[in-house]
């Protein structure tokens, strides 16, 4: 009985609070995930869903709208009403699509509410293979036989990062696209490719099990999540990129809505409620809001479009 009362009071408090703030939200909120269920974006937001619902006091309805490497779902988000009831689980994919020139929108058509987590790109080799580090990969690749590098589909952010790695190291890489990260990982485990370039969370279990070995990663400094993997920077290559995930809204979403979300996310971050889940998923909570976030997005967009180079239309 006591528990029931407690729940009721909590529920009442949760319902009453937003009414005082700015009336938002008064109904369920659609969250567009521009990929199918089970991907990094999907797991990120589904793990955050119960925490957000508790703070916002309304249901979050996750709508997977896959297609065109995220293009279909993002186009849908861009053309939705900017009333705060349709939001987007955003990631690098948006900037890659923009860099490839495949879509009609740019990142300027969105209001970015928050960056929540990030992870590095990692280049990894088979632990039993003949290449042990980035140096041997790069020097091995300059002979007649190019090094086979697996990655996820053409135009995915991992693929473009792989191109950026090839450009900056000047190595002769034979980039082989796979439909997704898991196919690329299994090719690396089976020695069908010499190395893979993928996001850290996709590679997490392969690295942790010791089947694959990370030889470089794209953070500016080493990370606690992958303490043994050296950065590109410390090996003399000026490459810094991160895979980020966060929340975006169509341009023109009311300031009050944005504030409400920023508050909710700040609260979740402050309580550390998402830390463990984020770590389990192979990502790190690294929140960014407001102007700093906009700067970060602009910078990432530039790097991506430079790396896409002649791939772009």
């Amino acid at each position, binding site marked *: 009985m006591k528990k029931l009362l407690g729940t009721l009071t909590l529920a009442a408090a949760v319902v009453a609070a937003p009414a005082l703030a700015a009336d938002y939200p008064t109904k369920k909120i659609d969250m567009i995930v521009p990929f*199918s*269920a*089970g*991907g990094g974006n*999907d*797991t990120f937001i*589904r*793990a955050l*869903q*119960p925490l957000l619902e508790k703070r916002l006091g309304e249901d979050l309805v*996750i*709508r*997977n*709208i*896959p*297609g*065109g*490497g995220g*293009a*279909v*779902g993002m*186009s*849908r988000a861009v053309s939705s009403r900017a009333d705060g009831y349709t939001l987007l689980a955003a990631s690098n994919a948006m900037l890659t699509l923009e860099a*490839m020139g*495949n879509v009609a929108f740019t990142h300027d058509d969105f209001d970015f509410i928050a960056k929540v987590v990030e992870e590095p790109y990692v280049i990894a080799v088979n632990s039993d293979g003949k290449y042990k580090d980035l140096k041997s990969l790069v020097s091995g690749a300059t002979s007649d*036989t190019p090094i*086979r590098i697996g990655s996820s*589909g*053409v*135009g995915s952010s991992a693929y473009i990062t792989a191109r950026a790695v090839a450009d900056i190291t000047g190595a002769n890489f*034979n980039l*082989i*696209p*796979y*439909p997704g990260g*898991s*196919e690329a*990982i*299994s*090719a690396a*485990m*089976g020695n*069908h*490719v010499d190395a893979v370039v993928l996001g850290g*969370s996709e590679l*997490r*279990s*392969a690295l*942790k*099990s*010791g*089947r694959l070995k990370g030889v470089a990663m794209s953070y500016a400094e080493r990370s606690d999540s992958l303490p043994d993997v050296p950065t590109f920077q410390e090996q003399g290559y000026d490459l810094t990129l991160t895979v980020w995930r966060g929340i975006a809204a169509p341009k023109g979403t009311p300031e009050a809505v944005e504030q409400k979300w920023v508050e909710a996310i700040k609260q979740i971050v402050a309580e550390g409620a998402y830390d*463990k*889940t984020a770590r*389990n*998923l*192979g990502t790190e909570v690294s929140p960014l809001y407001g102007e700093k976030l906009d700067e970060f997005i602009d910078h990432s967009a530039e790097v991506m479009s430079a790396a896409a180079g002649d*791939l772009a239309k």
Partner: protein
Amino acid sequence: MISGYLDGLEMVLQLGTLLAIAGGTLLGIIMGALPGLTSAMAIALLLPVTFGMPPVMGIGMLLGALCGAGASGSIPAILLNIPGTPSSVATTFDGFPMAQKGEAGRALGLSIVASFFGGVASMVILSLLAPPIAEFALRFGAAEYFSLSIFGLVIIASVAGKSLMKGLIAGLLGFFASTIGTDPITGVGRFTFDQLSLLTGINLLPALIGLFAVSQVLKDAFEYDPSARLKASEHRVDIARPRFLETLKHWRALMAGILSGSIVGPVPGAGGSIASLVAYDQARRFSKSPDKFGTGHAPGIVSVESANNALLGGALIPTLALGIPGEAATAVLLGGLMIQGITPGPMLFDNHDGTVYGIFLAYLVANAFMLLIMCLGIKVFIRVLMVPRKQLLASILVFCFIGVYGVDGDTFNLYLMLGFGVLGYFLNRYNFGTAPVILGLILGPIAESNLRRGLQAFQGDWTPFFTRPISLTFLIIALLLLVITILQNYRARRPA
């Protein structure tokens, strides 16, 4: 290891865990039975619920959904000739003819028991042999995938149609449809006509629902006969019960299903769709009465359904042992594992805290719940056939629209579904069959992208496709099957 199983047992045998598994199984059964809703969706829906749960409880619930949906896809396949999932396409070959003979209850009874045996056997194989099987699956590179898909194409042609030529034509039609969309290697759009929805190619679900459900509704509507209502009520409800002994009697078909599911199922990306076909083909080839297949023959149902649930255990092998999911449902499941902090990989099996054994046992329990719920439900399911045809056809169509729209809320896919419906109607009318089209659509991208990926990796040299042992084996078997099938067709046309 025994103490590991005891620890695992302790985690599973708790009221909360058992309830969670039962709930997951029930949801899986409901979603698997409705055309258009898939096990991947069931698992994704349950995912947020599992966060607060202990690992075995949360994963058990997700496995329940996987297992339930794997078994219940056969319900609409048998009753209405509409497969609930791509892997139950082959269930329609014998399940629907048996239902048409008024024995829908028997067909359901066989499929439930075969699913159960398939699921349990695959879990035993998974718990004993996962690491070596996973190592074997890793040996599949581009060449092996390409040859596997060619092998699959030959099987399609030989099982699905009445005529080899027509089956091949329908399969190639599916192959062609699969070239629509973004080129897998260069990223260029093909036949997309600037349609955003076509960028990722023809979505499998609208095609499946169109080819099977809409085409069937069209056929029934054209052949509508008011007196048929009487015929529907001839379905005998009293024979609707689980058929343990009859299933065991067809042990050859059962073994064919379990082996194909467990061997082909673990191959990521390719296994799921063809394991049940391989099982059907094997059961027919080793049968003393191959002619009866396709006419409502019990071993046909047993082989497909046991393969269907065996392949789930098979697909869990690379998911748990390597962290490589085979398809959508296990991909979502992998997300669930990672959120729980369980890292898939070889060391998961050396883990001594019993979690992995708890997961195995939870899957066994899920299979038991599946059997129980399906047995309780069998007399309810069969009442679908008592619904007057008119209302039934209309409601099937409603479910088709909801299911296809529900995937991604894209109206384009509704038109695609209707288009495939009309195509399916004519394909059936002229005996081409619709199963080869859908399988061509599934195997096409595997064949094409791996041929090109292989050529890129081997730097333009095509000989590795013939010199790599696994690849060569598949190609030789495919060739042999083709020759045998042609000879059989030739003999059948010239009766001695």
